């Protein structure tokens, strides 16, 4: 046979058939990320895209700020930093987790490309992660703007000089990995379900909102729910970011009468404890997500769900 891709004198490159390992993975990821970003952003001009991207997280924060205002009045102003940070970070979680699941549903149900992506030589999970990273970026932008609105418009006291940059960098990286792991789980779920599952990621994240101390301290929850919150890496991530941005501020994990106080004997966890807990719980979730995705992918292939389209 003649290889049409070879010119005379050129030797066959076995890497083209076998793959080039990490280089191929990176190329797939980069291409998928670029595609995801274009699909997210090229439907309109940048200003409109910006407005659409930040309206949702800012409105989420405003709902909570008004709840504080209605009940606590002027006294609620002291709680605003707590609520704004939690709400801003949560928009990052919502976008990140939804990104991969929507990539699955988009490519399977609307564009009907999932089967072609699946049979391509690229790693399936790498492409999905690349597609989802665009939404993570949009979520990060929304979180940043929400924080900025909190500081500039709502008067949240904020001093750049007070920030614990090392802690912030560590928890942001670990948190991003954890969010990607949760997104992989949701992608595995949406591989199994019908097209009505567009809002499953938001529903799951909304349920987690209850136990992670995003907008109220865990100590107000019943003890079993506090225990569930303490094993969730998102709880430690939010607590870590809060501690880094507002050192010495109220913690979402500890407090008088909290489960943390009963278990650890201290009122609030230290920065080191937060990082270790985030690392451990994040590692467990990441490992579990890899296993769940593999089994979900195998089940979807086995039952012919990869090229299924559904109506509603």
């Amino acid at each position: 046979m003649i290889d049409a891709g070879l010119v005379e004198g050129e030797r066959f490159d076995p890497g083209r058939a076998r793959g080039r390992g990490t280089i191929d993975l990176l190329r797939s990821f980069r291409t998928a990320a670029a595609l995801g970003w274009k699909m997210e952003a090229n439907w309109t001009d940048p200003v409109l895209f910006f407005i659409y991207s930040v309206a949702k997280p800012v409105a989420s924060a405003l709902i909570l700020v008004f709840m504080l205002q209605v009940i606590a009045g002027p006294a609620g102003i002291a709680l605003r930093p707590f609520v704004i940070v939690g709400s801003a970070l949560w928009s990052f979680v919502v976008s990140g987790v939804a990104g991969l699941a929507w990539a699955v549903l988009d490519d399977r149900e609307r564009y009907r490309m999932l089967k072609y992506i699946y049979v391509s030589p690229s790693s399936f999970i790498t492409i999905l992660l690349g597609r989802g990273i665009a939404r993570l970026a949009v979520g990060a932008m929304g979180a940043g703007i929400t924080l900025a609105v909190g500081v500039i418009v709502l008067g949240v006291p904020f001093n750049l000089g007070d920030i614990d940059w090392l802690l912030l960098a560590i928890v942001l990286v670990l948190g991003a990995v954890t969010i990607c792991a949760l997104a992989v789980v949701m992608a595995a779920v949406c591989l199994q379900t019908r097209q009505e599952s567009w809002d499953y990621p938001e529903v799951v994240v909304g349920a987690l909102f209850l136990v992670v101390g995003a907008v109220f301290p865990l100590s107000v929850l019943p003890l079993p729910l506090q225990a569930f919150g303490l094993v969730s890496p998102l709880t430690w991530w939010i607590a870590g970011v809060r501690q880094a941005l507002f050192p010495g501020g109220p913690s979402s994990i500890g407090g008088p009468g909290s489960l943390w106080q009963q278990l650890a004997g201290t009122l609030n966890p230290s920065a080191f404890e937060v990082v270790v807990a985030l690392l451990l719980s994040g590692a467990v979730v990441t490992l579990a997500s890899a296993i769940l995705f593999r089994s979900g992918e195998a089940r979807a292939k086995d039952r012919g769900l990869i090229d299924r389209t559904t109506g509603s």
Partner: protein
Amino acid sequence: MAAPGVAQPGLPAGGSPPPSAAPGLRAFVGRPTASPQAAANWTPRQVWANNLHSIVGRAYPRVRGLTREPSWIVFQMLLPFLTTSSFVFVYRALDAPAAYIGFVVIGGAMTAFWLNVVWMMAAQLYWEKDQGNLELYFAAPMNVMSVLIGMAVGGLVMSSTRAVAILFIATFVFGVSFSISQWGLLIAVFILTLAALYGFGMMLASLFVMWGREAFHLTQLMTEPVYFVSGLNFPVGRLGFIGALAIALIPLAVGLDAMRQLAFVSTGPTGTPEPWIEALILVAMTVVFIGLARWLLHSMEERARREGRLTVRWR
């Protein structure tokens, strides 16, 4: 040769006697008629029956789909209750009056309908266009409004399961006590809210026929920002002018406020119109939204045909 189902003169199809001038209720395709013209000329009764069948047909996949996706029970009935619970705990952390817990529960239940209206009514024709069904809807011998009504009926059944689950579980778990004095008005307001909400969804669905991917982003824009201006978790009257505007324009805002006033009489004045006035606003909204939906669907279809957008996908 005669078209299928059309009897040739003097030769009854299938040995049956020649049909009378007005075909019966079920005489659509494949039934013997005197001529192609007779087959095409439907009686008003046939038109109505056909449109009713279209409504049932469009509602069917939504209602039947509930039983075909077991994950629905967890993701659409149990987990949304936890989301609502988060806001309950925010109020508990602030030692808010008990009625505010009830506000959150009613708001949580009504989000089920709002999300359904936004995702599965407003954006539905856009999804259908991407999936290749839209041209079939417009080519089929039916009024396309039947499709919208069928979507609304099916969507109502779907979202009712979620709303009822949130309402009952949250009421039981958090011990919400309602103080209702006008049951009749409360039920009327609830029905009117649903009618206005789904009328709003039908209107948006007609608009979305023209749009591409911005439809998806608009659905995103219509969740939390609308929750905020509608006072989903707090009295909308506290928003001042924005709240008043929301009551005048957004069925979720006016319906929620009226239901809260009727379900928690003890909370006193809210700074918003009386429930019966809000009921009238809902009636007006229903009429206007459904009328606009009908007009928009027709004009958007015309425009989309002219600009060749009915079959354009993935843009």
